């Protein structure tokens, strides 16, 4: 099984988290892409996608994910069969917009027929000290679940 890690970032935290997740996976081939230069036509419906995305401004997508999201909306590729897991980064001191950036992407994936698997991962900058530690544990649980389902 191929694993594709996609990250959407403004300040680079999701980039670090994506690379740290990749470094922690030994059981499969992993490639990491920055959504800021990822073509929606390159989405591979046979691969498991781990999506790491922050929140920016008033609950918006980070700069690095905006073009990708726009392309999903405009091109509307069919994502039937594509399985993805979502890890959102946010700050709960913004009560109304906490972790909303990743949810915008999540809705776009779901609307095109993709299937979200496993638990929705969350990092809260107002509470959790280290996003990578949480994300690595999250990805390990996702992989365990997906691999178990294949047997």
């Amino acid at each position, binding site marked *: 099984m191929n694993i594709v890690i996609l990250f959407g*970032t403004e*300040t*680079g*935290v999701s*980039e*670090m988290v994506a*690379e740290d997740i990749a470094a922690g996976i030994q059981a499969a081939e992993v490639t990491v892409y920055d959504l800021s230069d990822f073509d929606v036509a390159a989405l591979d419906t046979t691969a498991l996608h781990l999506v790491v995305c922050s929140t920016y*401004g008033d609950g918006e997508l980070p*700069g690095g994910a905006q073009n990708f999201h726009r392309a999903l909306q405009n091109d509307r590729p069919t994502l039937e069969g594509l399985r993805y897991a979502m890890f959102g980064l946010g*700050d*709960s*001191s*913004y009560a109304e917009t906490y972790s909303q950036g990743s949810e915008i992407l999540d809705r776009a994936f779901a609307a095109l027929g993709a299937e979200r698997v496993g638990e929705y991962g969350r990092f809260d*900058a*107002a*509470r*959790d*000290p*280290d996003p990578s530690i949480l994300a690595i544990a999250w990805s390990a649980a996702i992989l365990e679940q997906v691999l178990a389902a294949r047997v």
Partner: protein
Amino acid sequence: MLASTAPVADWVTLEELYADPYPIYARLRREAPVAYVPALDRYLVTSYEAAHTADTDHDSFSVVDRSGPPRTTQPSFLNKDDPEHLDERRQWLPALRPAQIKRSWIPIFRANAERFLDELVALGPGADFLSGFAAPYVSENLRRVLGFENATHEDLNRWSAAMVLGRGNIAGDSAAAQAFARAAAEMDVALDEMIAWHRRQEGGDTIFAHLVSLGSEVMPLESIRANTRMTIGGGINEPRDVLGVATWALLQHPEQRAQVTADPALWTAVFDEALRWMSPIGLILRSTTKPVELGGVTLPEGARLAVSLLSANRDETMWENADRFDIERGSASHMAFGKGTHVCAGSWMAKAQVADVGLPAVFERLDHLAVDPVRPVRVGGFVFRGLLDLPVTWGRS
């Protein structure tokens, strides 16, 4: 135009704020979390909630001061609103992204920590931890990350001191303004030479190398100069002070020191709690773009605000016994880096050089590190706050 309904706190003096702002801030949070302070000629914001709103509601609160005296210098992106702020920030950021810091800079920070601990040890017990280690260590780190090949860490440290004095110069002292102008002129000459030098080089991970790689898309030279001044002003003072405050706090709390030396995963908690307990940037300035409600009072359009991060981070409604240093309290929601679009661009570099490298190196290397019992530690400031010196002793090294 609506008038202000904010109470006037005419009992607040700059001298008392400099010496010990915390009792003043505690009273203001209780009685008037948004109050007009004549000594500052600004509305002083002291509660966490009001500070958070002022820093994150970008429609109502601007970093551009529309009613104060006109600026005489080009502003850095810290003093621009979006979208101009974001355009320049994105050009500045690649060298400061956490993945880049891990790849390129952590090994350099480690080597610098060893080098400047050697220099501190050579000074002998009784040396000042700040000027003997923290300042040269963070100055050299920043010199490398910026790409200042033609300057020394002493140059950066000297420029930074002048920038900070200039920025903290709320009272308008002319000697501080002149020192700022001299340092800025000296830095501009070195910077112009470096931009030309980097244009002749290939690649590189530094801030300057990335800027020249943008070719004609790069921001104008005047903006590069302004942002370099801002980076040097904020990139030395602040990490130096967090190193000093965190070290001092651990030396006063042997039980917490024992905890963290037994479990290195706790250095991040030490870093966050030091930032909360004594935030190096004490005040940030904002200006209202329209009449607005804040902290239960009405402010007119154009109201000039001083938002106290030092005070927000001691807010009892956020943290119990907020005056106590406690690495177990969960301090990650502190406002020391700011929130919103202007959140500190150097926060991950600060974490890397303080929590990941600097503090562990200091406590591993200097056995029996202690505050020098014969010389007092001095603390000061409210625009910026930190230790003025930290004389330390140690056993083996």
